[in-house]
């Protein structure tokens, strides 16, 4: 495939608001997970909460008002990202720019709140009657309006692969000349649905998640907003690029991964093929690595069989938590960022790698100038996406 240029990127998550803060947490091996309970939630767990959002006073028009869209705005305003996008809008024209965002929760946290104050006639009370909020696509409409983009805005919602797949869709839209520049990304915010939902599946860890550890106990949930500005032609001096993508489904089960990781393998192979590289050519792999007993075993064994020992393998959810619909962009940005900074993060909280996972997991971060980085995202419904980034 023709590489898509990555002109700007940003990440806001529990590990930091914006790249300088995120990079400090990565270097200092400092988790963003906290034991502070979520309001109204009785599940004892650690959460990757963006605490800065709680006392952030930025204004979101009441048509769009909800935690998810406030998190989106906080994220857009970091690292000069919104300014860079507005430059692209001025350069290409608002109608030649588009938005493709992934989310799984979307704004359901706001819908939960509305149900707690439901009127006797079963209607939302007036302050919650927000059509633009209580639907799965809210965040893309909000971000397009906030950035002044008038081309198409699309939301992808395929659980935990949502905001990885945005890069695949953007590459296709650029190839078909639907737009010249596209804001891709993802925003997912903590809410009761996901905490109690994963709790019902017995997948929530009572301690900070430890991906690929012998004693891993499940996931730590988190929230994040991440974005990248992609274009067909370079816009400015940046030399980073999307080199390949691969998508697949397991055709196996709604909430359990294929036991041999067949769908995951198809996604990785498709990404490798599109990039023109080989598995030997991948310097760093950011694993999906959620911290569950089953999924880490499947992914670890598969990657041990596909990648040479020279590929650095790590999972970063010990810093961020599993940010679900934003996990794809969170880990895509951390992969792109490793290319840009030359620092490859380790696997936080993990101390005794599980031999049953087979893969040689990088525990501590290393300075390693890398030229290619791959990121895996696998979701419910057996939905998989792998991305490869490098230099244009």
């Amino acid at each position, binding site marked *: 495939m023709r590489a898509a240029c990555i002109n700007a990127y940003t990440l806001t998550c529990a590990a930091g608001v914006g790249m300088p803060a995120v990079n400090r947490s990565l270097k200092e091996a400092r988790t963003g997970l906290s034991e502070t309970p979520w309001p109204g939630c009785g599940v004892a767990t650690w959460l990757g909460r963006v605490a800065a959002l709680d006392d952030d006073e930025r204004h979101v028009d009441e048509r769009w008002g909800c935690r998810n869209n406030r998190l989106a705005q906080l994220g857009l305003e970091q690292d000069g990202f919104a300014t860079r996008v507005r430059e692209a809008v001025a350069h290409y024209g608002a109608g030649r720019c588009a938005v493709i965002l992934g989310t799984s929760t979307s704004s359901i946290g706001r819908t939960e709140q509305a149900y707690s104050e439901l009127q006797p006639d079963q209607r939302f009370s007036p302050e919650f009657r927000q059509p633009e909020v209580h639907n799965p696509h809210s965040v893309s409409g909000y971000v397009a309006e906030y950035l002044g983009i008038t081309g198409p805005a699309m939301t992808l919602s*395929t659980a935990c692969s949502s905001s990885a797949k945005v890069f695949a869709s953007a590459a296709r839209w650029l190839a*078909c000349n639907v737009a010249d520049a596209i804001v891709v990304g993802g925003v997912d915010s903590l809410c009761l649905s996901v905490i109690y939902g994963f709790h019902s599946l017995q997948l929530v860890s009572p301690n900070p998640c430890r991906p690929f550890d012998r004693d891993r106990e499940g996931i730590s949930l988190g929230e994040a907003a991440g974005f990248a500005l992609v274009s067909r032609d370079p816009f400015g001096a940046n030399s980073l690029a999307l080199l390949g993508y691969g998508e697949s489904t397991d055709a196996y089960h709604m909430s359990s991964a294929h036991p041999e990781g067949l769908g995951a393998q198809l996604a990785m192979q498709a990404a490798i093929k599109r990039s023109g590289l080989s598995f030997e050519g991948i310097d760093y792999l950011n694993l999906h690595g959620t911290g569950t007993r089953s999924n880490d075993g499947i992914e670890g064994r598969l990657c041990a069989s596909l990648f040479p020992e020279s590929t650095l393998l790590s999972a970063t959810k010990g810093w961020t938590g599993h940010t679900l619909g934003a996990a794809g962009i969170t880990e895509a940005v951390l992969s792109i960022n490793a290319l840009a900074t030359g620092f490859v993060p380790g696997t936080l909280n993990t101390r005794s790698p599980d031999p049953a996972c087979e893969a040689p997991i990088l525990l501590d971060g290393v300075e390693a100038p890398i030229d290619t980085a791959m990121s895996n995202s696998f979701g419910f419904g057996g939905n998989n996406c792998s991305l490869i980034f490098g230099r244009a």
Partner: protein
Amino acid sequence: MKLCITGVGLWARGLSGWNEFLARSPNDFAGIDAAFSPPSPEAIPARERRRAPLSVRLAVEVAHQSCRMAGVDKALVASVFTSAMGDTDITDYLCRELAGPTKMLSPTKFHNSVHNAPSGYWSISAGNRSPSSYAGDFHATVPVALLEAATLCTTEDRPVLLVAYDIANAPPFADICPIRESFAVAFVLARSAPRTGWRIDVAVVDGPADWPQAHSPYLRALAASNPAAYCLPLLEALAAERPAELHWPLSRWCHLAMSLKPSDSVTRDARQA
């Protein structure tokens, strides 16, 4: 983007497939007085079917219908699913339970709450490991998903299944986006049509557009009842076997322009099927 539509699937009140639509087209829809009956797609394994909510059964039913008509290998077609509101029965269940004292969620209902649940059940029912998405934009959800399907079909040169569905809702969601009738429609898109197909040229165009209105009063009312049914004028145009220009709003600022040309053999073959 120049493509072909090679298959259509449909489920609505009184209409359980494209052939029933054709048989009533253009003026015989007024006779429909049946109540809505949910599909029970045999393609979903019995164990999964019991757990499958209405949104899934609608989407999987029309997906299989359209693939049969197109004659594509259902294990190999890529897919894009869409709805304006997702499964509001499940959203309502989650939010009611979480507003109550016990907050005990059913694990099955929780995993069915992901918006790609229909895509997941489809891939299991079809043994299909190809790329599959849930993509949309509220009221512009069908045009956005068509754009996504068209770019997927064009760049990867493979048939793509597009499935749009929305289920009927009640308050409080009826205040957010009133959906009076459940409805699902599917199309198979391909770069070329060796056997049958309508030719369609799709482009994003600057400027607003209003949704076209169906000619049949019955279909006009059905289209107004459900965002997935806004596209019924396209089905009328397909059935009429006449060239048509359709404009679907993508946002306040741009729209999808479609130029449709019938291929002579298509509807004749479908009628014989």
